[in-house]
């Protein structure tokens, strides 16, 4: 499949480059002294808060995503996110969380569901909506595009994720959701999304390049980017 026809590479790169310029220089300079233990405490605390909010998936995700922004990628965070997305019927994102964990060679993850079967089911499903859903789907896409243009990213993400539940391997949805994450500087989510995307479309060079680009936005996690095979 040529995903380029959906504009993945062009939009992805264009937006990524803009965001890169905006976000550059906003990083926090960390004192040279030993702050590693503080990061460990903070990440552990975020996991505690996520567990405390087990009955509230919205809050849980907020804490997991905050933990995902930290310098190290913890198996507990990825497993928690995968379980959460799976429980909410967001199979694409659940698979993406596991794919992201694989990028970092995190092996101690037990999602308690058959990932391979889920991925196969997803791949066996239609790539695009059937004709009778086409109009509503297109409306949803148009709405999301408008919201992105108006910088209403929260709503755009909400719309796109709702659509993704029904059309879990739709490249346009994945692309647009990636755009939202890029525009908001949420590189861990951007990269996680493309990690899942790359497993669905393993031969697509544009997806691989966008994935690599996402990893490059997280310099503290550079050491793991060797896991990505760059495409020419």
């Amino acid at each position, binding site marked *: 499949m040529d995903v380029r026809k959906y504009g993945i590479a062009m939009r992805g790169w264009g937006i990524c480059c803009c965001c890169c310029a905006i976000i550059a220089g*906003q*990083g*926090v*300079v*960390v*004192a040279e*002294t*030993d*702050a590693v*233990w*503080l*990061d460990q*405490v*903070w990440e*552990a*605390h975020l996991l*505690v*808060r996520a567990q*405390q*909010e087990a009955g*509230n998936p*919205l*809050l849980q*995700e*907020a*804490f997991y*995503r*905050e933990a995902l922004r930290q310098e190290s990628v913890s198996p507990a965070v990825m497993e928690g996110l995968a379980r959460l997305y799976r429980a909410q019927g967001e199979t694409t994102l659940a698979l993406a969380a596991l794919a992201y964990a694989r990028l970092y060679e995190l092996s101690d993850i037990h999602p308690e569901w058959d990932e391979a079967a889920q991925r196969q089911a997803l791949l066996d499903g239609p790539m695009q909506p059937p004709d009778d859903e086409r109009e509503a789907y297109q409306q949803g896409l148009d709405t999301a595009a408008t919201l992105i243009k108006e910088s209403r*990213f*929260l*709503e755009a*993400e*909400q*719309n796109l*994720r*709702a659509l993704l539940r029904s059309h879990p391997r739709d490249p346009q949805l994945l692309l647009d959701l990636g755009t939202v994450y890029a525009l*908001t500087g*949420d590189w861990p989510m951007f990269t996680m999304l493309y990690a899942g995307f790359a497993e669905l479309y393993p031969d697509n060079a544009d997806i691989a390049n966008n994935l690599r680009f996402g990893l490059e936005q997280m310099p503290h996690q550079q050491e793991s980017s060797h896991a990505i095979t760059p495409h020419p």
Partner: protein
Amino acid sequence: MRSRLIPKWAFCLIGLAWASAQSAVLAPDRLDEDQISGWYLGFDGRMPEPIVTPFMKARQIDGAVRKLLDEREDAARAAPEDPVAQARLADMYLRVNRLDEAAQAYWRAARLDPENPDVLESFGFVLLALGDPENGLVVYRRLQAAKKDGPRIRFNIAAALAQLGRHDEAAVLWQAYLIEDDSAEPRAAYNLALSHLHAGRPRDAIRLLELLVHHQPDQPYFLAGLIRALKSVAAPAESIGPFGERLKSLVGSDQARRLTVEIPLPVFLIR
């Protein structure tokens, strides 16, 4: 569709801000005059509303506080590498009980200035207030290791130990605190009584709680603790009854039941 769905998803990008707004955490704090009166401690359960009423009210911040918060947010955004700006923002979040954001801002400040004991102590305090004794304890132990010890730090370490179920260790620290502190801090006495109660020493708990109730007959947590302690030694109903009636008159039946039966009684922290 938009208005219905925004709140549900807003957290995705707002993150901890939304989390803070949702958390109804009891955060016993310093004895601020605008929050309490007289002998009352850091919270007030007299209203027939949630125990956290004063703190929920604190969230309804007035214009002046809002302005100050905005200024500090701007300052922290403008100088992300300035630990003072981050800490000042954290202080502000703490003041309005936005604890998750306070914790995050203290963490940022501490990363920038890991040797600053005040920032570390505040970070540890907020972690404890958020119900995370394990990580709060790590921070406080670091402070102790850096020779930044003191009664207040030991008090909150005891609170962390109590939250972790290590009541005997907590009791030792609170006893030491009470000996050290001339004012016979009632919060320490109440906390010590709870540790005695949990550690199977109800009579020691009763002795302390009776004294506390004598001095502060309208403090609902003292009353609730005493009622629990008396029940644990199967005290006759007529000796418990008056305390139960007083508690109900102060906080209402539902809240009284929660305090005496349903929820674990909180321990105080101090700042």
